[in-house]
């Protein structure tokens, strides 16, 4: 590093001459403009704006000038250096932008390549359907009640007006557990949950009970020893069949589409009186022109959906509800069955075979 050049005759300091400074500036600007890429510009910066560049060297000579000349020369060199630095910055921006442009172009990928490296999960459609149904009722202010699957005989039968010699006990083929005299069964219906609810809560009661139930049915396309039911129970003052009809019409329209209603046919269940079979209007043909050829309802216009009725006062008594004050209604539908016709499934067994291709197809929403 050299200090100020005090030996020079000030008049003889060529680099500080105006034309010479102008030359250096022109040369620098030309080089900057000519720099084709960032590497070239880096060299240009070293050559024309670095410590050893002509302008930097010239700047050092200023101190050697007589004081009266320093100001002018300083201004001249300073302006030149400023212009060069500005040009460098401008060129830098341009080249950087160009570089980025080029990089982005070069980095283009084939976005049609597969992207899934992690397997996709899914929930079981019966779980989803149960939750969907529960949500429909929760939205109305109902609650979701639950109970054990291995259940006391008394709660599964007796409390529901199915005494030990009731012929209807043979309607339901029950799984019994050992020892047989312990009176414990696999629940044949979700109704014991209704009994449990009445036994533990005071009316008004508005609950749905979705859950798995068991019957000794051989496993085939339409029967399974385990299946899913959803039952509903209302116990309140002044409850009538009209409320039952209103609730099921609403349920049907929510699950199967606007305008879908239900039809009641007299039936028999020990826990309800009057009792009815519920048919739901076929949501495909809607009982209209296409009915005769409709696959979903097999030309009936209606689909058998479940059973329902006004809670038998005997059940209320056994469950500690005063039938002089309260009345109620109950209904029960097969969730699997509802799923089968809602989603056009022919063989019930698909629900229980556990093939991941089945559940995956439904993802996490139904």
């Amino acid at each position, binding site marked *: 590093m050299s200090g100020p050049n005090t030996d020079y005759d000030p008049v003889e300091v060529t680099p500080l001459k105006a034309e010479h400074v102008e030359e250096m500036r022109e040369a620098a600007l030309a080089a900057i403009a000519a720099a084709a890429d960032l590497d070239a510009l880096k060299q240009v910066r070293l050559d024309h704006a670095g410590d050893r560049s002509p302008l930097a060297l010239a700047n050092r000579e200023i101190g050697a000038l007589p004081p009266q000349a320093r100001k002018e020369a300083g201004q001249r060199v300073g302006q030149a250096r400023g212009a060069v630095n500005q040009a460098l910055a401008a060129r830098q921006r341009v080249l950087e932008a160009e570089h980025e442009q080029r990089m982005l172009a070069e980095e283009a990928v084939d976005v049609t390549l*597969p992207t*899934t490296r*992690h*397997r996709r*999960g*899914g*929930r079981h459609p*019966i*779980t989803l359907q149960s*939750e969907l149904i529960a949500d429909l009722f*929760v939205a*109305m*202010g*109902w*609650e*979701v009640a639950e109970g*054990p*699957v*291995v259940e*006391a*005989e*008394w*709660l599964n039968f007796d409390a529901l007006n199915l005494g030990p*010699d009731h*012929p209807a006990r*043979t309607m339901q083929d029950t*799984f*019994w*557990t*050992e020892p047989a005299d*312990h*009176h*414990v069964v696999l629940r044949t219906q979700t109704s014991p949950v209704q009994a449990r609810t009445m*036994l533990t809560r005071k009316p008004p009661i*508005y609950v749905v009970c979705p859950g798995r139930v068991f019957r000794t049915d051989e*496993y085939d396309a339409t029967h399974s020893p385990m299946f899913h039911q959803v039952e509903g129970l209302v116990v*309140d003052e002044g409850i*009538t069949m009209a*409320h039952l*009809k*209103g609730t099921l019409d609403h349920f049907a329209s929510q699950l199967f589409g606007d305008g879908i209603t239900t039809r009641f*046919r*007299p*039936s*028999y269940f020990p826990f309800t*009186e*009057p009792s*009815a079979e519920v048919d739901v209007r076929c949501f495909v043909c809607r009982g209209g022109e296409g009915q005769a050829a409709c696959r979903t309802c097999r030309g009936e216009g209606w689909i058998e959906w479940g059973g329902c009725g006004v809670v*038998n*006062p*005997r059940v209320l*008594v*056994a469950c*500690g509800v005063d039938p002089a004050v309260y*009345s109620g209604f109950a209904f029960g539908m097969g969730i699997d069955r509802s799923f089968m016709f809602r989603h056009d499934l022919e063989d019930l067994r698909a629900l*229980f075979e*556990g093939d*991941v291709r089945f*559940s995956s197809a439904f993802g*996490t929403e139904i």
Partner: protein
Amino acid sequence: MKAPLSWILEHVDVPAGTTTEEITDRLTLTGLKLEAVESPGREITGPLVIGRVLTMKPEPQKNGKTINWCTVDVGDANGTGEPQGIVCGAHNFAPGDLVVTVLPGGVLPGGFEISARKTYGHVSAGMICSARELGLGDDHDGIIVLPEDAGKPGEDVRPVLGLDEETIELEINPDRAYALSIRGIAREVLVSVEGASGFRDPALRDTPPANPDGHPVLVEDPEGCPVFVARRVTGFDPSAPTPDHIVRRITAAGMRPISLAVDVTNYVMLETGRPIHGYDADKVQGALVVRRARPGERLTTLDGADRALDPGDLVVADDSGIIGLGGVMGGETTEMSGSTTSILVEAAHWDAVSMFRTGRRHKITSEAGKRNERGVDPTICEAAADRVVELLVEHGGAVADPGVTVVGTPPAMPTIQVAGDLAARVSGMEISAERSAECLRAVGCEVSGSGTLSVTPPPWRPDLTDAQDFSEEVIRLVGYDQVPSVLPTPPSGRGLTRAQQLRRRIGRTLAGEGYVEVVNFPFVGEADLDDLGLPADDPRRDLLRLSNPLSAEAAFMTSTLLPGLLRTAGKNVGHGTTDVAVFETATVTLPRHAGPAPILPVDRRPSDEELAALDAALPAQPLHLAVVATGDADAPGWWGGARQVGWADAVEAVRSAAAALGLEVEASAAALAPWHPGRCAELSVDGEVIGHAGEVHPVVCRAFGLPARSVAAEVDLDVLIDKAVHLRPAPSYSSYPVAKEDVALVVDTSVPAADVEAALRDGAGDLLESIRLFDVYTGDQVGEGRKSLAYALRFRASDRTLKEGEAAAARDAAVALAAERTGAVQRA
């Protein structure tokens, strides 16, 4: 119940032009649901007529058969009036016989189209039919030869053969036993079908009065058998055939014709609903005695079964001992046979509960038992017996014995008070007391009163016992289709419970982690637990056994979800899905070996103690979560190779589920079947064990059809949900700079990483923000039996920037404590 329509309409009139569909629609809407309408000739179309054989010429054929070349008079049915030339292979007829002839253009069952065709050197223009060709049974011994009075040649033969008879099949609910008869169905037609009238009760007939000359009967148990009627015929021709119309009707009703005597009793049962039993009177020794069976008594019933009787069984005995299970099935010793000429006819009313119990005890289901256990009209025993006698006389040439035995009287029906507005209150419809009374009278009740109705049900409706039963009768006749649709207005609810919400959250989380939910049956067998490799004393071998499993191989309720889930995963692999990740949430059954569940009274609410006793008798049924995964966790692709599922994925699945509940899971080494003994983690939350996870034992993998290195986890979700963090406080975090320090510690391979980490945490003190194990190394550089654990530590203070050396000092303290606790040596 299958009922020929013509039989029903013999007993009730419907307006002219009423279609079968109109009748069955109304019956369905009032509670007798139509299952099917059957007609034996429904598949036959085109000309099917009476023909008279004019000539028949036997022509031997080269193939050894002899055919008959016939000419048949079919009247004008063939359009020409000329005899029809037909080739027939049967030989059981002769010229002059009337036969069933299908002409070209006709179609027989099975879509068999008839046309004039050349065969055996003739043009055969039609066919002479056998019963089988018409779908009327399996009789193919020859063609049908019609009786001489069947009709004229050319007339439609369908009515003659009953081919146009429609039989309606109705579903009869257990409370409507009266509809298990033509009598009951005709009555329903009367009350259901608009304009129906003229009900003619088949059980309403003049019967001879009881007299002392009948067969002696002693009823020792009048509660079990309130009415016993016995009649007798002699001189019966056991070879007399059952008339065609009776055969057709009982066949259409689904019963098998056997002999005239048997068919007649079945016919009268179908007609009136009252089961009848016929004894070979010559085999009965002495008086009939009705009583309960005594211990040790046995009976061989008509079906050949030798049965040990129960003291609850109602039996009929004579001097020889027991000769029948009353109301359920007769005995072999007095069975009517092909040589029976004297018949003792029994029409008795039996206690329905006894019938049900006996039927269930001896596993007998019979048409008689079905009716008797549901309840039959007790007032029609005499009429039914008389009707049987009448038919035996008419068709079997028998002579009615003048003796008539009637023991007992039908119990009176109770009168029940029914509030006049009950039907309105129950249905939400406007139904007046008058309208209610009108409906009840229509179904046969006697009704008096106005505000409160005094109602006595008819004797065929033993099901009508409660006021509510009568409201159902009223409402079904007013019409269920008239019930208005009104949404009830519940009070505002609490929404889903927290546990319900959290279960959903876990399901969604696992689905998000790539697991697919499946639903398995909870049935398991000991072999499944053997496959799991559970030792003999494993608590999961304590299972609740089913008394009546569908399969002996799966006779228990499972205590673990793993057998089902491993099986499911194995099946998927078997189907070619090699990368499988499945999960299941379901309750398992853990016996508590408590006492029996009491059968509580139903006339009041049980006490809380009684209810607690019910629950105490049930097994524990915790909700479990299980996952199984196999194959690739991450698929291979342009991004690189596959990542195979490993033990850590099973642990991580549980950690994800727990994290969704705000919980952290700690793992420690365990050795539990079905896991690999060195790759099994016991998982706990807050010090409580929730389950296990890890790599499945290779032997177990093989047993379930899974490749080695498959992984599984099973945890108790109830515990997790119980512990779920509810109101989590908002976190505070520092915005001062972080200081990072990495350390590598060498320890014995037996030292759990969790212990090293715990020591580092404790040693590092409050400034430690986080610690992460980023590398595990074993190999030459650390020596045999040693491993290197590399941790990234982050330090930060909440209130200031750390001073130079503070982080390093904390790191050194952490390392020092790790060295002290675990023998860790810092790697240079």
